């Protein structure tokens, strides 16, 4: 039953996520909250792996979620669920390719969907950042406003490194953060 549920969850994600990269993140994090299948922390670990390994981030996240829940076949089922809608939709529209993307309805809808999808990603990403940088929760305001200072420092250092070293691959920053974590935390 878990396989069917997993397939259905990821089928919906494949159907409604728009764009590339992190587009699936808001859906996965909403699914995690609703079902309680995975914790927010696990999602962050999954992101680290998904960004540092080959393959599209969305696919990597799906495989990882599936694996965490139901091992090998969970990963298979989640990934297949994610790609099924794409395959069906692309096959259907491949015949009418020339007219599809220039069709006004499609154009206007996706013009609106792009900032919308970005809004969803922003909320999910900010949620993760808050959870990482304010590990004690918002009720611990007395504790220096709940900010974990060492983490905040590392966050700012890595963030500015990224702005300076734009051509570097994310995997280096993640390895660097892991090393600092090992030495400091």
């Amino acid at each position, binding site marked *: 039953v878990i396989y069917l549920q997993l397939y259905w969850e990821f089928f919906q994600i494949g159907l*409604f996520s728009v764009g590339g990269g992190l587009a699936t993140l808001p859906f996965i994090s909403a699914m995690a909250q609703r079902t309680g299948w995975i914790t927010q922390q696990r999602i962050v670990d999954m992101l680290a792996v998904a960004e540092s390994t*080959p393959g599209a981030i969305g696919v990597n996240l799906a495989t990882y979620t599936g694996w965490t829940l139901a091992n090998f076949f969970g990963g298979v089922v989640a990934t297949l669920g994610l790609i099924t809608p794409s395959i069906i939709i692309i096959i259907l529209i491949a015949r009418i390719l020339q007219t599809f993307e220039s069709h006004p309805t499609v154009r206007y809808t996706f*013009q*609106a969907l792009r900032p919308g999808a970005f809004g969803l990603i922003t909320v999910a990403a900010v949620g993760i950042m808050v959870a990482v940088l304010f590990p004690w929760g918002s009720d611990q305001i007395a504790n220096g406003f709940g900010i974990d200072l060492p983490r905040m420092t590392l*966050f700012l250092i890595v963030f500015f490194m990224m702005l300076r070293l734009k051509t570097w691959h994310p995997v280096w*920053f993640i390895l660097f953060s892991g090393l600092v974590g090992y030495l400091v935390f």
Partner: protein
Amino acid sequence: LNTQLDLFWTFVKIGAGTFGGGYAMLPLLERELVEKRQWITQDNILEYYSVGQSTPGIIAVNVSTFVGYHRSGVFGAIISTLGFVLPSFFIISLLASIINQLDQIPQAQSVLIGIRVGVAALLAQTLLSFSKKSIKDISGLFIFLSVCVVAWFVPISPIWIILGVAVLGGPWYWIRKKLKTHRNTPGPKPPTKNQTNQTQEER
């Protein structure tokens, strides 16, 4: 069958070489499909990308399906997409089985904390670079802000938000276009959600 095996193997290579998603795949597609195999042209790729963006689903998966379909029909579409996800699959399965065990080891905990902070910084940087590409006009900014407010405060599935944006925002862009082309004739009444937005536009 040889064509299909070739297709499958090509996409296994592309999947193994792509880091990230969407556009990260572009140079590999060009090298493998346009230069080496000459299955498709540069223009085809751009075409697939614009459709891949204008259809639901992950761009990289959409483009893989597209190339496969173009090359050898429905079966080709399935084969190339499966080829594309296969490397992810093995690498992630391997790493997931290791990392999910790490929770028990204290030293690994501190590494993981560092990594989580790194991911947070990576997310911040991604948001920054995305914002320029995703928000192109005032309407876009309005949609972005509305989605942020709704998604942050209302416990609602992102599916409904996406549907809402499509249903309200799509017609809005259509109306705006109409307003721009016929400045003098009053346009039809926009949906209520975009009312405030309209006044901003007309100023």
